[in-house]
């Protein structure tokens, strides 16, 4: 199969956001997402994951450029100010470009 380049958007955020964030991501056109449990430290201190209020999630979304831009823009507008989170983007090769 021919490979094609897509965006991998990775969001690490406080677990409380999960429901809202994933709804938004889908609404913005992503065809899927993957979530893993995480903990960490950042500007808002240690988030040790020992209970809900201190847990993070790590969300990955493989999508096309346009969807990536929409997600990034939305997260920036809506969540950056008030929530513990980071977001980063990279390029990945995929085999079934129509899937993402």
């Amino acid at each position, binding site marked *: 199969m021919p490979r094609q380049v897509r965006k991998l958007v990775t969001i690490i955020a*406080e677990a*409380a*956001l999960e429901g*809202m964030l994933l709804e938004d991501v889908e609404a913005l056109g992503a065809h899927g997402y993957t979530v893993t449990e995480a903990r960490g430290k950042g500007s808002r201190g240690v988030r*040790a994951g*020992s209970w*809900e*209020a201190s*847990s993070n999630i790590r969300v990955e979304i493989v999508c096309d450029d346009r969807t990536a831009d929409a997600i990034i823009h939305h997260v920036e507008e809506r969540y950056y100010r*008030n929530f513990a989170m980071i977001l980063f983007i990279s390029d990945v090769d995929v085999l079934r470009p129509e899937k993402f």
Partner: protein
Amino acid sequence: MAVLDPVILFFVLGVAAGLMRSELRLPAPVYEFLSMVLLLAIGLKGGAELGRQSLPALLPQVAAVAAMGAIMPLLAFPVLHVVGRLKRADAAAIAAHYGSVSVGTFAVATAYLTYRDIGFEAYMPVFVVILEIPAIIVGVALARGIAMETRWKRMAHEVLLGKSIVLLVGGLLIGWAVGAEGLQPIGFLFFDLFKGVLALFLLEMGLIAAGQLGSLRHHGPFLVAFGLGMPLVGAALGLGLAAAFQMSLGGTVLMATLAASASYIAVPAAFRLIVPEANPALSLTASLGVTFPFNILAGIPFYHHLAARLEGGL
């Protein structure tokens, strides 16, 4: 206290281990499991008792308790906003935490009473449920005003279908449906193991509380003062209400404890999504780092003392 309550000592062990930076921690899924058992157990026990009550007779008490939950944030807010100079959203959030309740604190208080063979109105868990909610509504309104475009619907969902309410209410309903005898086959897990489960739960609560102590330094003495003072105000309200309804000694202690306790599950979860500009570090530091340990270690015995004097005719 002739003898020490082992359950409390697990909390102390957790705090000590946390302060000495031990690597001890309960795995998160286990902590969640223990919380679920506690919530269900409290609900089941209360529900079984409800079957024996005339529900209409309880309505005035329920209404009064709900009113208390709505009034406490209104008392706390100006103190936090004006005296403590906290931002509107932060003051509202903390106020809501203190208007609501801590199920863990309630569990310790029931263990405390059982340990001393002091009876209480067995339908008290109903009040736990009732108290969870009004303070959140008042708190959100304080933060945003009422005419706002707040997402009330999402809030209703978050609050009414949050884990703790579902388990408490579910437990109440199941207990009410099958009655005390019907619960017997599941009593080993939910009743006999209750104190052991509570002990392990408090071990982790101690570790979490110790973790909050670190952030106390940043947030200054005002939060500490509030975290110690507000429970006393709440306890006074609770004692008054219990007296008004001529509750038993144990019921009076529980009512004072409920009013004195501050939420650290339902309210933070709701505010995170509805009023996200409120800084959760502030409210959790006060609620978990100050008020929870205070109530567990000193508050409950003190409310017991007060309730006994009140009963004794003052």
